């Protein structure tokens, strides 16, 4: 054991190198492509596209993080995306059902799909790899059957709006020109609220014990995050404002960050993944927790399926193909451990953004899909090697 003070900045930096390293990597990659693409990368229209293109991956990465922290994996999410998209198309286009009915039905169907798979994993102890591999095949097939092998579309505007719509500007006309003032104000509000919440949290902690995170870090973290939020919302506001799907994502990230960091439910999932036997002997219902992580994953995959179908404005038999690989890669790039018990929601989101920025940037500068795959694969490997190296050094 080292005798270093645990409150020193150096100690804190060393024990949290992975978390900050991720963000630094994202910024470096962004800057790299900003230069290579002659500034196209951070153009408002491209930034908007970046969020739209990666929304469904991020939505699923949040759920996948819980599954992986719990010590399992879900290979079926890509097929579920396709299946739910197809179901929505058939319900709306062919059966003329209203959108407000279709969306909740689809989400429930997704949750049930996840629950069924979770049931076998949790209560029968069948390896998740096998159960969800089976699910992947089953739902790929059911998608084809449901669509009869053809594409179904287009969707009504109200459905498309979920994915391609933007937050309306309630303050339209206050400022001249094309600027979404409401979006900007919203961004400003979040920029102010986050550090206020953070300060309250620190104050609450300080009442009981020393705060672990040095103040310097707290300030730096919030300054960077605030600047980033303001910068992004400003850019988006000069285009069409905040996309609806960005709001959905932000809400999901906020909810799941809270659940994993601050609730007994989240803590128990980490304990389950860290040592299932110990968790069980501590009175934690490990089976039900596993079951719930899969049901949650199914629902989020369904949401991603809806978002994806709305974005394409059609349901195709190929929708969702190989999405599971991107989602799982994002979670591991984000620092989660294959053996469970380790990983952060924000890490998975940053991991997904790194993948997304690379996809987007490489496409703009004209790297072919062949080399894109190679590079993404190497990045995934490098991220995990970095993890293992850090762990061995510690």
């Amino acid at each position: 054991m080292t005798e270093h003070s645990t409150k020193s900045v150096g100690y804190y930096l060393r024990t949290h190198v992975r978390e900050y390293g991720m963000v630094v990597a994202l910024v470096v990659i962004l800057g790299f492509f900003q230069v290579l693409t002659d500034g196209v990368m951070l153009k408002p229209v491209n930034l908007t596209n970046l969020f739209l293109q990666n929304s469904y991956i991020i939505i699923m990465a949040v759920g996948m993080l819980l599954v992986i922290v719990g010590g399992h994996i879900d290979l079926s999410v890509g097929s579920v995306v396709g299946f739910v998209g197809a179901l929505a198309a058939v319900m709306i286009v062919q059966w003329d059902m209203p959108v407000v009915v279709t969306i909740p039905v689809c989400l429930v169907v997704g949750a049930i799909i996840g629950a069924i798979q979770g049931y076998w994993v949790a209560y029968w102890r069948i390896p998740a790899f096998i159960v969800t591999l089976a699910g992947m095949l089953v739902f790929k097939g059911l998608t084809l059957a449901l669509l009869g092998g053809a594409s179904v579309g287009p969707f009504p505007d109200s459905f498309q709006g979920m994915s391609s719509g933007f937050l309306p500007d309630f303050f339209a006309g206050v400022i001249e020109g094309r600027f979404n003032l409401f979006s900007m104000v919203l961004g400003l509000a979040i920029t102010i609220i986050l550090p206020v919440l953070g300060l309250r949290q620190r104050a609450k902690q300080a009442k009981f014990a020393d705060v672990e995170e040095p103040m310097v870090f707290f300030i730096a973290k919030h300054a960077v995050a605030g600047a980033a939020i303001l910068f992004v919302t400003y850019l988006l506001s000069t285009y069409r404002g905040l996309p609806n799907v960005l709001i959905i994502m932000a809400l999901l990230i906020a909810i799941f960050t809270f659940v994993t960091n601050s609730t007994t439910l989240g803590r128990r999932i980490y304990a389950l993944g860290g040592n299932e036997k110990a968790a069980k002997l501590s009175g934690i219902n490990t089976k039900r927790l596993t079951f719930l992580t899969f049901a949650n994953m199914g629902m989020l995959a369904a949401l991603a399926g809806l978002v994806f179908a709305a974005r394409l404005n059609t349901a195709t038999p190929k929708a969702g193909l190989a999405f599971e690989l991107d989602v799982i890669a994002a979670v591991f790039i984000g620092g989660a451990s294959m053996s469970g018990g380790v990983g952060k929601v924000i890490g998975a989101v940053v991991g997904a953004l790194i993948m997304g920025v690379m996809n987007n940037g490489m496409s703009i500068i004209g790297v072919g899909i062949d080399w894109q795959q190679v590079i993404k694969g190497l990045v995934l490997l490098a991220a995990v090697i970095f993890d293992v190296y850090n762990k061995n050094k510690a």
Partner: protein
Amino acid sequence: MDTILEMRSITKTFPGVKALDDVSLKVERGEIHALCGENGAGKSTLMKVLSGVYPIGTYEGDILYDGGVQQFKNIRDSEDRGIIIIHQELALVPLLSIAENIFLGNEISENGVINWPATFARTGELLGKVGLRENPATLVTNIGVGKQQLVEIAKALSKKVKLLILDEPTASLQENDSQKLLDLLLEFKAQGITSILISHKLNEINRVADRITIIRDGKAISTLDCHGGKVTEDDIVKDMVGRDMAHRYPERTPKIGSKLMEVRNWTVTHPLHPERQVVKNVNINVAAGEVVGIAGLMGAGRTELAMSIFGKSYGADIKGDVTIKGQSVDVSTVEKAIASGLAYVTEDRKEMGLVLDESITTNITLANLGGVAEHGVINEGAERSVAEEYRQKINIRTPSVGQKVVNLSGGNQQKVVLSKWLFAGPEVLILDEPTRGIDVGAKYEIYTIINQLAADGKGVIMISSEMSELLGMCDRIYVMNEGEIKGELAANDASQEKIMRMILKA
């Protein structure tokens, strides 16, 4: 007698720590030399230097072995010269056979093709030498820990061992298996094999060792000659901890109150073999302020009894009643058992007691998250202060409660497990081998905690394979064998002989 091994002024430093400081060790040919010291004293480091795990150049000092200065670059080098080390954690492949394990990496083969008849024949011979009657084709996973230990020794013999090093070989063995192993060491001694024995069990050392070297804080404190019978356990303990330990068990005046928990007609069936009853019609009870022991050999059904009571965590077809303070309670799940006031400290803290990669804080609150949360939201500050409170109360030695428990010593890990259960606020604690693999100093602290619990009016049930520990700590001892309670002894009436006789009576 000549000297087979002399380690001269060995100094080994890790970044920031001097693990070994000018340690010299002299081992005579054909003797059993014991190495004693608390966990972290440097015994294992010294043996790693000797066996080449830390290669020449990473330490200072000389190793003289078998007539010359040795420069081992790796384990292979030392094995080639007949130095074989058997580690505390066995290095066998469970799903390979005994024969395959013995010759793993050293196969009897020609051009890469294994000669199976020769392998099996040679394995048979080796097993005969260590007194293990098993088919060489039996998978290692299908034999008990005691027998696995013998397989390791057979493996060592296959490599023409001259100096055998055993790192706590009896830590996970039962009394009778330990005795067999020690007898084997004595037999090897008669055949001229030299052994170095690392052990925490002082009675064993006293039984077989010719000389004892005691290491404390990376320094060799003393070498005691056991011949003449002048060395007592107290002498060893004194050198190990650097202070006098007149009493190995803290003083306590029992204040036994009314009956707290009663288990009646408890029967448990093996989860995979429905025809096998693992626990048979057991009746036990514990009163407030009482420490009750359960003695027995491994496989007696003690852990199975405890785990089946604690939320049916073991076994099938469980029958019987549990009452706490006269009220019948439901212990069908761990959650309900905890709510009824039960706590169970497992015998295997790393596998089943702790989330090793998580912090001390997280581990302490795990069984009672509700105690630091409101509406399912954890109050981090409250959680930290709970951890700090137990760190001080139980004396967990760590720079911060944010430290991961994987970085703590065995004794401190056990204190974290105990803290976890104390925070859950139980009435009755079942402690399964609470001091296994813990050094003498930390054991004393654990005993003190147990006594404090009893003084606070809790009921403590203590399962232990160390009879002296039960005799030193308990007010009453149940003796268990083959799933049945064979008898019950009051502390002032109990002795090791009486317990052993109860176990052995049919």
